[in-house]
């Protein structure tokens, strides 16, 4: 009698376990494509080493412009002495786009009042690291910016 009871409860346990694992597998089968679907596919990014940032006569001294570089903003600055500098315009704090402040001759992030000097180093504010600096050179009428090698 006792033996029969154990075998019955064993069978019940086995059926319950089979149903439960079957259900979990079934839900997994339904969820897998959904989870894959919601993560967007990686788009082929055009990765360039050099881009045209401006024309030679475009920027007057003590001014700057932003331009796209590999799908991200970059900034080209013409210093008061006429020299060009280029940096990534993505603030290293929370990815805001920085700007050049002609009044205090620094790179400034409006989001959290961060300041970078004209070498891209942090002067004040929360950014943890300097802005990535790029090489600038002229080619005929164009000012080209490229990643540092």
């Amino acid at each position: 009698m006792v033996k029969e009871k154990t075998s019955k409860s064993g069978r019940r346990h086995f059926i319950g376990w089979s149903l439960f694992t079957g259900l979990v597998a079934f839900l997994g089968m339904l969820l897998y494509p959904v989870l894959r679907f919601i993560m967007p596919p990686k788009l082929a990014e055009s990765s360039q080493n050099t881009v045209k940032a401006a024309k030679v006569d475009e920027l007057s001294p003590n001014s700057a412009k932003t331009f796209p570089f590999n799908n991200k903003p970059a900034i080209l600055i013409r210093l008061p002495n006429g020299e060009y500098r280029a940096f990534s315009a993505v603030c290293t704090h929370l990815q805001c786009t920085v700007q050049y402040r002609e009044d205090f001759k620094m790179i400034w992030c409006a989001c959290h009042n961060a300041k970078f000097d004209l070498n891209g180093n942090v002067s004040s504010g929360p950014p943890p690291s300097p802005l990535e600096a790029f090489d600038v050179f002229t080619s005929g009428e164009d000012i080209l910016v490229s990643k540092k090698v």
Partner: protein
Amino acid sequence: MKIEKFYNWVNDRLDLSGISNFADKKVVPVHKYHFWYGIGGITLFLYIIQVLTGILLLLYYRPTAENAFESVEFIMTSVRFGWLIRSIHSWGANLMIFFLFIHMFSTYFMKAYRKPRELTWISGAFLLILALAFGFSGYLLPWNKLAFFATKVGTEMAAVIPVIGHDVLIFLRGGEEVTGATLTRFFGFHVALLPLITALFLVIHIILIQAQGMSVPPSLSEEYEKKPKSMKFFPDFMLRDAVGWLLVLGLLGILAAIFPWELGEKADPYASAPQGIKPEWFFVFLFQTLKYIPGKILSFSGESLAIFAIAIAVVLWIFIPFLDRKGQKNLHSRTFTVIGIILVLYIIALTAISYFFD
């Protein structure tokens, strides 16, 4: 054991006894037509799938004339399992309308619309109209050639409505022609307006069914009253329902995987209509009917008269519970059964003619 604990936890905070008593007492009649009680549930299940896959498609779809086609193409070719989700949405829509028709005719032939269930029938009829509107608006969204012309012809029909016809056409199209403005509008209808109205009617429909229980057809009611036989809704009927839902899910998976829904060519508003253009299958019998109507009947436009007649037929169909007097007295109304049979044969025959002989 853990489930019991969880139930007790919730029950201590929200008194669930009302729900559990209801679930405990709810029964479903058992008789020879008992099978048909499950069709409405299958339709609801397909609607839920439509909502879920629709939300997923919204992650990538872009509702503008410039981007819509490309975004669907992107879903189908670049997004992982995108082809599957989109195919399930398209096939699911068609299956849902198919089961809706079956559900409607099965309740019709079982005379489930008779007192006290008139409002259930009417709310169901509105749900069918809403489903057709979902189908019509969703069809345009991939912005392909077939959909473009189907929308052009379909919205043009609104123009035959006396007095306000032209205004309705402008409202539907967002202008004189089918353009990107129409697409944006249809997108709004499809993902916001229609779901909202449908949710309202669905809640009414389901509450009425829960409050009144399942109807036993008049042809069986005498026999049933003598020897009532029923099964508990929870869990007996529900588990049977679940098997049906699972089978439909399997069918949907097979259809979507083996016959992925095609995208066609991108719509070009200045191109000619392609050969053999047809509306979706559930509108084909109406489309075919209009083909047989002469251009002029007396001094009226034949097409306007036909559309007017169809509109009257739809209104009569909605109010059938009040027209079937015998049914109201719980008597077997043969005339209405015959009307139903004629209608089913008419729909099947005209659809078949359109697909196979035209």
